[in-house]
């Protein structure tokens, strides 16, 4: 019963996320509403970590495989991209690296220069 209950809770939150996506006018998908809802439920104690833990660990572990079909689908969009391949490829490679470096370095500098709350208070 434990796994059934855990999976049930996670699917219920997915479903609520779907409802919010339909009702609210933002381009924000069900999964993002869902993360926020589950997080709030955990924070408020409405859902305990123990009541979702194993199923959530399992789903997170198998998550990389869920991206395989989408990436294989690139086969089909190849024809549309081919004509502008160079700019798309160059921009994708450069910006991905730059964003990773900038955000990582900024956080690291911030932590090093004492942007911790305990030092301010």
């Amino acid at each position, binding site marked *: 019963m434990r796994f059934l209950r855990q999976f049930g809770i996670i699917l219920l939150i997915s479903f609520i996320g779907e409802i919010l996506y339909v009702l609210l006018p933002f381009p924000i998908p069900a999964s993002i509403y869902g993360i926020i809802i589950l997080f709030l439920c*955990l924070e408020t104690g409405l859902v305990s970590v123990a009541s979702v833990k194993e199923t959530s660990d399992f789903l*997170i572990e198998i998550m990389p495989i869920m991206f395989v*079909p989408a990436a*294989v689908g690139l*086969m089909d969009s190849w024809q549309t991209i081919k004509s502008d391949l160079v700019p798309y490829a160059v921009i994708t490679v450069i910006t991905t690296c730059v964003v990773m470096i900038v955000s990582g370095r900024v956080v690291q500098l911030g932590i090093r220069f004492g942007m*911790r709350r305990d030092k301010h208070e």
Partner: protein
Amino acid sequence: MSEFFETSVFFGVFLSILSYGIGVMLKKKWKLAVFNPLLIAVVIVILFLTVSNIDCSVYQEGAKSISFLLTPATICLAVPLYEQMELLKKNYKAVLIGIFSGVLTSLASILLLAFLFELDHASYVTLLPKSITTAIGMGVSEELGGYVSITVAVIIVTGVMGNMFAETICRIFKIHDPIAIGIAIGTSSHAIGTAKAMELGEVEGAMSSLSIVVSGILTVIGASLFAQFIV
């Protein structure tokens, strides 16, 4: 032969898992970034479909059942995030400034390069949401008048790149702090990168999950402003 695969319920899912398993084995043997399990899995599946002349849509039909779990799995990222809440509270300023500067860098560097390549408005806004999670990115691209299918392709390539090169880039640029590594991965390469962050450690995974949400929402706002720079 193809007819059997078309009716098989488990072919697509099994092929995906098997290919990913081979990728994991190769990665264990040779610890090079190129042997990324996700990349290997995609290459094997594409090769298999091409060689055996099975239509991509046949595979997709079966593989749907794994994609179905993507939303529930993404939602579960809230659990590690909650478990690392103390660490997050201590460092929230650095974390938020880091994600914000990452999103701004993404939009600004795309604008700059779009100018250099003389892209038109549609191609430019197609690229703007490239670093955020697919479902949000599609919505942004559609709303701003981009080519949605290309946006999806670019987002996936971005994610796979982040997944492949995160460790190498962080090492070269001396990003050692697990919080910084997590934010760097999540802000640049969304959920596909986060899968990698999860393997690196709990803190990395939690911070990367947070970045998906925050950078996704910031990009929705930021992209609509940046879209006006190339008309």
